[in-house]
């Protein structure tokens, strides 16, 4: 917008009404309107779509969580926060909450670290890079259930390929590690499978962020004598921060709400050691038909995830403002 945009009838106001394009001569009213407040109407279809796809289920879930609605009766009673209160008093739910924090947090951290390391394999140009890139992308492109069939065999108590190799190398005694047989082992195993699946996503985000960094910044840092680590931490990461943080938000939300890996690998066992909130909600809400309690379990993490996402997005915005 130009400085004289506010004055009616001036060339500046015409330019302002036309979106600041600076064209000379009058414009039809419909074009001025299009670039005026009516442009918000063009957002309406997407907004309505988002409201329908995201908003309606969210509002419905919140309503369900405040009632005793279940599939075995048509009668519905408003119970307020009773579903949430009963969850907090349940040791199994608290354990599931702790398990979710461990699973989600560890998966996010390891995915970010290993993904970043993998990105440095994808950044430079070298012969065979397309093949390497294809192989590295496979974990992300293979459907999760299919890859988990492989992981099931890797963790199989009798025929684990890891155990067999380790035993052949003489570094493990028979019968070997029970990957899914003890709570700690099982948690580590599902984190491993989850991180393996998500590493390519993290790597791609990092690569996309880094290639957007102006080359002259890197060159200037080199000229100033900055080593690899200083270039990474003082130049690349701060400049790429907006994209990296966005990727981190997506990855975190995905890890904290994932159901598939636990459902297919451990079913929450052994002894509740990998029971996480999403699987608990599935058991209670879908298998048991207790929609109210299931919705309460599902929504339990919503404030936390929303707050964390808000912090990340604010950091992104500040980072972009600082760069501009």
């Amino acid at each position, binding site marked *: 917008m130009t400085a004289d945009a506010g004055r009616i009838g001036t060339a500046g106001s015409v330019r302002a009404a036309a979106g600041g394009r600076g064209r000379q001569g009058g414009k039809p009213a419909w074009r001025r309107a299009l670039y005026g407040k009516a442009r918000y109407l063009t957002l309406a279809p997407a907004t309505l779509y988002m409201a329908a796809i995201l908003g309606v289920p969210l509002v419905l879930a919140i309503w369900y969580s405040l009632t005793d609605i279940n599939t075995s009766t048509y009668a519905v009673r408003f119970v307020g926060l009773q579903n949430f209160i009963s969850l907090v008093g349940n040791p199994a739910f608290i354990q599931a909450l702790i398990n979710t924090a461990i699973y989600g947090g560890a998966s996010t951290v390891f995915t970010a670290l290993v993904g970043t390391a993998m990105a440095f394999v994808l950044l430079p140009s070298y012969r065979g890079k397309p093949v390497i890139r294809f192989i590295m992308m496979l974990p992300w492109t293979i459907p999760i259930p299919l890859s988990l069939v492989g992981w099931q065999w890797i963790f199989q108590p009798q025929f684990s390929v890891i155990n067999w190799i380790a035993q052949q190398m003489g570094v493990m005694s028979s019968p070997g590690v029970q990957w899914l*047989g*003890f709570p700690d082992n099982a948690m580590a195993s599902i984190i491993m499978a989850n991180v393996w699946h998500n590493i390519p996503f993290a790597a791609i985000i990092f690569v996309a962020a880094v290639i957007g960094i102006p080359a002259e910044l890197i060159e200037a840092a080199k000229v100033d004598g900055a080593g690899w680590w200083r270039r990474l931490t003082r130049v690349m990461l701060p400049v790429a921060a907006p994209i990296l943080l966005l990727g981190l938000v997506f990855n975190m939300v995905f890890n904290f709400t994932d159901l598939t890996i636990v459902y297919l690998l451990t079913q929450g*066992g*052994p002894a509740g050691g990998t029971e996480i909130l999403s699987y608990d909600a599935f058991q209670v809400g879908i298998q*048991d*038909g207790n929609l109210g309690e299931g919705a309460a379990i599902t929504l339990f993490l919503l404030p936390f995830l929303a707050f964390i996402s808000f912090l990340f997005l604010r950091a992104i915005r500040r980072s972009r403002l600082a760069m501009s």
Partner: protein
Amino acid sequence: MDKTGSTTPGPGSRPDTRGEIRTPFSRRKFLQAAGGGLAALGAAPALAACSGGPATSASSGGSGGSGGKNLRLLLWSHFVPAFDTYFDNYAKTWGQKNHINVVVNHVPTQTVVTHFSSEVAAGTGHDLVQLQADTQPIIFAPHLADVTDLHNKIGSENGGWIPLAQFGNVNGRWITIPEFFIEYPGIYRKDLFDSVGAPAPATFNDLITYGAELKKKGHPVGIGFSACDDSENAALGFMFAYGSTFIGKDGKTITFDSPETRDALNEAKKLYTSAMTSEILSWNDSSNNTYLDSGVASFILNPISAYRSAPQSLQSKCDFVPPPAGSQKGANTVTIQTWVIPKWSKAQDTAKKFLADYFAQYETAFKASTGYDMPFLNNFLKKPMPIIGTGKYQILQDAASWSRGTGWPGPPTRQAGLVNDKYLMADVFAKYVTGQMNLNDAVSYGVGQLKSIYA
């Protein structure tokens, strides 16, 4: 981004003659690629529909609907593949004979309830659904049609229903037609037990005593304490064998904290430490099958599918026994398959006729299951039963006497179903036998969880 749609400099960029930076990837190319990808995604479902899609068979072309001339069935993919072949052919033939377009959808086991839940939420879907537990009709009761007339008809024509089939009556109306249950006998290696001078294991004490010797020889006992149905059934088998239950006959009184429960837990711990290995803690429903078929296991508790999938040379060494006894007669809970007709179906009469005709020739269905599907009707349980009436299978004919419903001795309620779905009993047993909790803490934990479920 400049006027040509170029992005900021990056790998592969090259300056053009105007001094602007062009990249090999422009906005036009991006939109072309995205459009092509979306077109491919959109074509995929259409192509799948033309090919009939996975896990679906149809008696005639087309997807069918839910009007009177159409009948859509939803059921699991049977563990005996030949049964699905038989059932699909039967449905097709029945459809042709009755001028009904029958579509049969098979889905992986344990996902039937997930599919049906979404149909309940939508208020539309299949006309005839085979649920996989005696508690599931109760969970969805308001959405199920009254089949009292059909239930009585089938029962009266076939010698009546056995006690295990007495579920699914809500306020005097029957809402489900039970088809079969899957028994859980003990399957043991007769050659291994003979080698240590042991008789056929009849009690858990036999398994503890002789299992310890066999474990030293590399053939431990295989009873899971893990998050799967087989393990939950096994844990309940331990409890029933020592007179323990988690709920009373009224289906509401929690009875888990008892001396009998402590006896069951202690015996389970003895068995685990002396005759089993830690791998049973990570088992899924196929693990005990694998354990037996690998030649390692000396004893498992499992349907006969584990035996059937074993090599012929191993089958000749195996035999069947009822579930082990303790201070009480052995028993365990079983998997139950039962038909329901949703209220939204416009083909309820057609669905009832299908079931009536299907049960009229049920002996054929039983044979097609190769003895896997144990009937609920007395006429089909008369000895000698087809296939399992001779040889080592004979003891399976008495399976109804040692099989219990969910929530036994109480009725199969939604809460009992959740105990089963959360593998709560197996969880308690696992926590105690591995030493994560002492006896009192394990019992208290179980009671606490039961209270939260039955609250």
